[in-house]
């Protein structure tokens, strides 16, 4: 083989190498890809029924206990949203776990990332604390640890026991759909959304059953049914973030 002539074997070799490299980089970029969430077996979602919510704030307190958050930080906020008839309406707001999450896209170090079940996670050991995700989040779902949380958690033990490690000072934190409960529950053969031990704490604690949790991939799940049977909306849908938290509006139900 001269320098200029490439025989077929070499050509094939080169092609193979080229394809392998391309596939390799593709695979690498795929695991890193942050513009689209990978789709796994489960696709967790939450449905919040505004006609049921009474604004009692139990969800917030249970969240603070189970996730051991600083009392100044609320992963789940319950906000007032005017009146329907003579009843106050509330918008409980956890992290939306967007399908195209701005926080994941902007994070310079991939500390925010997608799990293949749709949960938008934070790697608190990787985060550098630049707060770009906070600036980018359309739902104010992220809270920064401006100071270290060292004192006892006032929500414990009344509202539950901590299940995750406290986050260090200098990183933002947010709702994780109680991934620790889901993962542990699945490993025990429980069904998230049905069995309390495998379901997010806010859903379990809700005294009026305003929160439904489950798998969108399962047409028989509570969330799939609720979304199929009722009109629903999502927050700031015009931004194209694709939130996984759906709301059933508190409009008066059709009078039959």
């Amino acid at each position, binding site marked *: 083989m001269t320098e200029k002539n490439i025989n077929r074997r070499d050509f094939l070799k080169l092609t193979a190498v080229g394809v392998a490299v391309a596939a390799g980089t593709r695979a690498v970029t795929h695991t890193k890809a942050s513009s689209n969430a990978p789709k796994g077996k489960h696709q967790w979602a939450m449905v919040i029924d505004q006609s049921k919510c009474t604004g009692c704030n139990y969800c917030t307190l249970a969240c603070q206990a189970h996730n051991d958050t600083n009392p100044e930080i609320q992963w789940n906020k319950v906000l007032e949203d005017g009146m329907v008839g003579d009843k106050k309406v509330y918008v409980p707001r956890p992290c939306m776990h967007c399908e195209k999450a701005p926080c994941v896209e*902007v994070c310079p170090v*991939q500390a925010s990332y997608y799990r293949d079940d749709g949960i938008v996670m934070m790697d608190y050991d990787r985060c550098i604390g*630049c707060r*770009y995700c906070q600036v980018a989040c359309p739902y104010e779902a992220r809270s920064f640890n401006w*100071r270290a949380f060292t004192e006892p958690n006032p929500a414990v033990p009344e509202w539950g026991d901590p299940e995750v490690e406290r986050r260090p000072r200098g990183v933002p934190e947010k709702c994780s759909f109680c991934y620790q409960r889901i993962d542990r529950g699945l490993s025990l053969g429980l069904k998230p959304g049905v069995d309390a031990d495998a379901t997010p704490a806010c859903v379990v604690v809700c005294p009026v059953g305003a929160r439904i949790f489950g798998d969108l991939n399962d047409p028989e799940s509570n969330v799939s049914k609720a979304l199929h049977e009722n009109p629903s909306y999502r927050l*700031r849908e015009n*931004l194209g973030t694709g939130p996984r938290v759906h709301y059933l509006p508190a409009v008066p139900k059709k009078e039959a």
Partner: protein
Amino acid sequence: MLKNLRSKLIITPWMIWLGFLGIILLGGLFAGILVFWKGLGITNLTDLVPWGLWITIDLSSIALAAGAFSLCAGVYLFGLKRYQPIARTATFVGLVGYTMAMLSLVLDIGRPDRFWHAMVHWNTHSLMWEVTMCVILYLTVLVFESMPIFASFEWFRKRFPRLASKMEHLHHYAPILAIIGLGLSSLHQSSLGAMYGVIKARPFWFKPEMSVLFMLSAIVGGIAVTLFASMLSARLTNKAKVNDALVERVAQFVGYLLIGYFYFRAWDALATTYTYDPGRTEGLQLMTKGPLAFNFWFVEMLLGMIVPMILLLYRPTRLNHFWRMTALFLVAAGVATFRWDTNISGLLVVMPYIPGQTIAYTNYEPSLIEFLTGGAIIAYGLAAFSLGVRYLRVVDHTLIEKELERVKVEATEPVTA
């Protein structure tokens, strides 16, 4: 002996200047230690306004360091060789500016111990990742570009003559470094704007022209601050020698650039509401009528653009040293104000995420700690530049001209032989 020393110790303006900067640096050092010890909780930053004074200092020092790439590109790529002495100053200003930016970022991030994570854990989708990488790489380029400057330090030259000559030799790679520098700078100067421009959650930022504005303002401000620093040091010390004809020509160029910058800035601001996205009008009102109105109309538009534009394009005022310096300073101040206004205007408008709720406003004023540390970062920049002028002759337009002449003679030798 003590008496002897005392008689030698005369207080010069130079010492007063260094002493003054030293006090600010000490205050900032104290405040900085407090920040690392107590955390960002002692600042006035909040979850709604997580970026404040430090980010503005970061953005501004990067912008005002842009003279390095624009002038180096002009000199080494576009063949404007006679402006090389100014490019030399600009390179040093660039080095100082980027280290200032690094300092403010180390303060600003919550986990400064993990600053290196961006180099290891790449998120290629993130504008901030791109900016971080470009800034790190460009800082490296600047270090190489400034090697010949450091090689001219007398003490260093005597102590390490071989190393000094090697460092001086890097001068020959200036065109290559200028190409890399131009690439990296164009990328991150504009991406710094795009960093804001891609945030769809904040409609006042969410626009493509953000990167154009950041790029343009950086070139204008970067060149202006280099010229201003050169002229000021030439006035204050005989260690700095300025070729006024060169400075005047570049100042005129800044005047023309200002027209473009003014046009884009005015168009960008006043056309903001064309899309009627909620939040845009509110942002514009903050700028034109609200708490930022003074900054926008008076500092940015009038003092930062229109006044210097006139002063630099009208020949009599441009030839007058006082007016030219005033104009150049105003340009730089205007660019820094633009960065502040841009950052803060997007954050102060709090977009509702619940349908039907109205837009709210928040506020932010830097805390004393932020001012002390921010002041120290600026004092560091001033001190570094002053030391450079005194010991590295970074503003010496006669120095390079000799070198150029020597090169010229060498080149003509074969012809005459």
